[in-house]
């Protein structure tokens, strides 16, 4: 009993700290607590706890007055084609930190059940000219604000959402591959044959409703796949698989409207990060307005050569174990 109440207190405190991020539900909860305090200021005896209100003053209240608010998981209903309201997802990739560990790619391949021979997330060995330094560059779907792929799709199978995501409805795709021709980032992959995920990867599809929000779940023959920014993770309040898998904190994921991005360890101001480290976007001249930003590979802590150990020019997806 004692134990569980402590736990609930901790959850509540946790919420209080998170209140700076201000989920609408959280602030409502606090207001409710405050009104209860006013009502029975001479309340029962027992443990009191200290809380900080939104304006920064500390207050003491009786622990019995504290209610637990359930985690706000997927409480907001939204149209899959419209996207999550009032969000705008961005990613920042810090090239200075990448040493081609490829954990991002392995995690992505695993969680999207990729059976083809072309990964959705690739780490390119880049070198602009012979005289400039080589570096590793992870690349995924740029979720452009002016996506060329969406413009050319004849059936609205690939679409752009208000929250920035470019997703694919694999039930609608006719397999014309025009989007692949249109994408300048070579990010789209095609299911040339039956993916057979259930057999080679033991994919469990029981109780799963296929959705554009989870690419590769399942993949369909004759349709296009690509990085989806993992909305199935976002709705669980978790970060995309590549972000959490990276041992070097290369990927920062976040919300442009909140102006914050996090790599799971540190949370930073998005705009400040880009300013401080001279962030840029790929093929800016084409006007595609990508939502993936890169930080230049300067002041690197690791040697480029260290990454060569894992580099395989001709393979990005490990063939499944037989």
């Amino acid at each position: 009993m004692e134990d569980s109440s402590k736990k609930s207190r901790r959850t509540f405190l946790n919420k209080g700290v998170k209140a700076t991020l201000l989920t609408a539900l959280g602030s409502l909860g606090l207001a409710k607590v405050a009104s209860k305090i006013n009502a029975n200021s001479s309340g029962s005896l027992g443990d009191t706890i200290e809380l900080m209100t939104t304006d920064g003053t500390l207050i003491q209240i009786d622990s019995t007055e504290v209610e637990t608010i359930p985690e706000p998981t997927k409480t907001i209903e939204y149209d899959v084609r419209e996207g999550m309201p009032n969000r705008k997802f961005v990613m920042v990739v810090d090239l200075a930190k990448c040493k081609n560990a490829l954990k991002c790619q392995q995690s992505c391949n695993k969680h999207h059940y990729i059976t083809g021979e072309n990964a959705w997330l690739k780490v390119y060995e880049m070198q602009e000219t012979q005289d400039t330094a080589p570096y590793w560059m992870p690349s995924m779907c740029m979720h452009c604000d002016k996506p060329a792929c969406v413009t050319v799709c004849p059936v609205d199978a690939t679409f752009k959402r208000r929250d920035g995501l470019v997703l694919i409805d694999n039930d609608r795709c006719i397999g014309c591959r025009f989007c692949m021709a249109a994408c300048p980032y070579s990010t789209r992959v095609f299911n040339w044959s039956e993916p057979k995920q259930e057999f080679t990867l033991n994919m469990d599809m029981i109780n799963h409703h296929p959705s554009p929000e989870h690419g590769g779940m399942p993949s369909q023959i004759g349709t296009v796949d690509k990085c989806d920014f993992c909305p199935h993770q976002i709705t669980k309040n978790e970060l995309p698989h590549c972000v959490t898998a990276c041992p070097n904190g290369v990927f920062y994921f976040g919300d442009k409207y909140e102006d914050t991005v996090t790599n799971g360890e540190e949370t930073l101001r998005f705009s400040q990060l880009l300013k401080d480290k001279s962030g840029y976007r790929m093929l800016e001249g084409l006007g595609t307005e990508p939502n993936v930003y890169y930080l230049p590979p300067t002041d690197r802590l690791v040697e480029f050569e260290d990454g060569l150990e894992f580099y395989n020019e001709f393979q990005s997806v490990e063939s499944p174990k037989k």
Partner: protein
Amino acid sequence: MAAIESLIKDLGPKKFDLRGKVWTVLLIAVVVAGIIAYIDQLIQGQKVTNMRDYALWGIYISNFVFFVATSFVGSVTVAILRLTNNSWRTPFVRIAEIIAVASIIMAGITIMIDMARPDRLINLFVHARLQSPITWDVIIIPTYIVISLLLLYFPLLPDFALLKKHFALSKPKLSKIYGRLSLNWSGSPVQKMLQSRGIQIICILIIPIGIILQTIDAWLFSTTYRVGWDSTNFAPYFISGAFVAGVSSLVAVIYVVRKVKKLENYITNFHFDKMGRFLALACFIYIYFNINEYLIPAFTSKKAEAVHLETLFRGDYAFPFWFVTIVGLLIPAVILLFKAGRKPKTMLVLSLLVVLGSWWKRYIIVTPTLLHPFYPIQGVPESWRTYFPSLHEWLITGATLAMALLIITFLVRHLPVIPIQRTADEQMQQDELKTTEP
């Protein structure tokens, strides 16, 4: 009347001889092989092709572009020559109309072969999005098919009526079919007026629609960012290329039909000479747009353009590029400038070279560009960096070409390849001129 009977004997439908039968069986065999390959592609998926994520389009698309281009012959020869009152067109307009119909139908089928999910064809209509160039194609190709069919059909009406009469006793069943097709044509002044007005309208319609068709075909490529496609020159480049492909196929088909049906009295050296000039004009216009397309990017030599052009000029695609440019375009154009170069036999060789060049040209427009994306090609099997069609692709592509030839063969077999009534009218006019002049 006797004159018309002899015309029907020369120009009307005739049973195949042995050569014709062997030819038809051969074509059917190729088509069947292609259908089997296509069914296998449906079952296994496009894994059976050699297309992959980088070479995401291949021979199907280039073959499609070739068919679309060839169908332009309906607009250029038939409509333009008619509207400009060039009477030397009479003996071969029907063949041109037949080629246009066969090619545009096969273009429509070929693009569907490239679709990986033909079972979802209906999505193109129920979920159509107007900003996609593919939707423009979905609109323009059926339109062009209909107009091409009308352009073939309308001028046929009097001939169908003649054939109905001709076969009334010998083949009553066939006569009935021709009778139905003739829509009760009696040759009355009202009917003649309606018919010529109808043809006039179709001829005026088919020119802009033909140009739009070629333009949209070019835009399929030039609406992307890809180096080698992202060119404002592309639409006129494709239109002039279609002019070349159409007229050269026409010359080749005319030669064969004339030989097989023994029409030397109707399609004379004079007509070949005219066609030769026409083809030369087409080739020189196309050469002009080729210069724009290749030499100007080579002049500024932006890095990506330079890499792309390098593979064409000196790299992996140097052989097809120079073959297409020199043997398939420059040399024929120059030879056609001389009178001796416009003799039927020479023209057959030249036109076949130009047709081959036109077909291969589309291949080197599609493939090399796809193999030079903006990002380096990494993390995929080495074989994905090159493209050469697989056996399935060759069989299926061969079948589409054979099917086009089969349609042409079928129509040439059952329709008067040269308008009978029109030829008779023209002969009468000439006779009248002769009798009144001296």
